[in-house]
């Protein structure tokens, strides 16, 4: 057995592995999430009303984010209209983005709701978006059973 040094093994070119991880999974949304998503598919924004503190929560959750009680089974349908609480504009391109930039994401306080919903703001020039502007929902014609059945919000 002969010992070599690294100079005895000439490196021809760098070796680079081009690989990837393919990680498919399913996320179960629970009974509350399922009811909300099915509502979106029929053009309705459903909210859950906490039976303990009477707050209206959208997107609905099993546990109230205000009082931590179980929210129960009291549902309300919202008008879908709301006001923009805050927003951000994305100019950066990344592979994981569902829509090409520039686009606006906003925190939307729907009328009669006590929480805000994060969603896209579209059909508006990026420069014309302002806090407090009134927004209306735009639904998908062909619902797929996910949050994008509510496509985006547009100015009223």
């Amino acid at each position, binding site marked *: 057995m002969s010992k070599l040094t690294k100079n005895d*093994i000439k*490196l021809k070119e760098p*070796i680079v592995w081009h690989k*990837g991880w*393919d*990680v498919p999974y*399913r996320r*179960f949304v629970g009974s509350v*999430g399922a009811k909300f998503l099915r509502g979106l598919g029929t053009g309705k924004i459903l909210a859950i009303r906490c039976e303990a503190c009477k707050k209206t929560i959208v997107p609905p959750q099993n546990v109230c984010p205000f009082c931590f009680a179980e929210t129960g089974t009291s549902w309300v349908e919202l008008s879908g209209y709301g006001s923009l609480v805050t927003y951000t504009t994305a100019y950066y391109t990344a592979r994981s983005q569902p829509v090409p930039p520039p686009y606006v994401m906003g925190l939307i306080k729907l009328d009669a709701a006590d929480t805000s919903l994060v969603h896209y703001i579209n059909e508006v020039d990026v420069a014309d978006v302002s806090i407090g502007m009134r927004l209306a929902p735009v639904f998908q014609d062909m619902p797929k059973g996910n949050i994008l059945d509510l496509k985006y919000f547009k100015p009223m």
Partner: protein
Amino acid sequence: MSKKTTTPAKTGKTEPEYMSLPIPMKLPFAWAVGEHLGRFYQELRDNAIIYGDVCPKCGLCLVPPRVICPRCFVRMDEWVEMGPRGTVLTYDVVQHVFWDPILAKNRPVPYTHAYIQLDGPDAGAFSHVLQETNPQHLKTGMRVEAVFKPKEQRLGEITDILYFKTVEDRK
């Protein structure tokens, strides 16, 4: 479980319809193996030689080679040709089907994962798979030999070694 799972009692409410969202996730990456491992994978690909490196201080030999000795923290700059035969230190026959994110499919089972001490200087364990998957034909201390892919199929990866086959051999 003796207790029967029952659906909630009829309360007049409609049962919730559960649903799930398929979330496909693809994470491509490029990994440059570096100068040190580059020599190892190049020689695997071009000459079907398994190289290890030796610590000049403690004599530990590692396959695949590492730049720094994990015991003495000195540079491992002596290279030696290992194997292709070796001795099985331990093994495990995998029967359970599981998702392999690199293959993007379920790993074919059964397969035998083994730690092999390749012939050469005081060698550490080399992790690879054995051709033999019948537990009755496997035992620690058995002699095995590396089987390479045909040269035109070798890509400079650890899978350029297909598996280790059982050989009748006394060390």
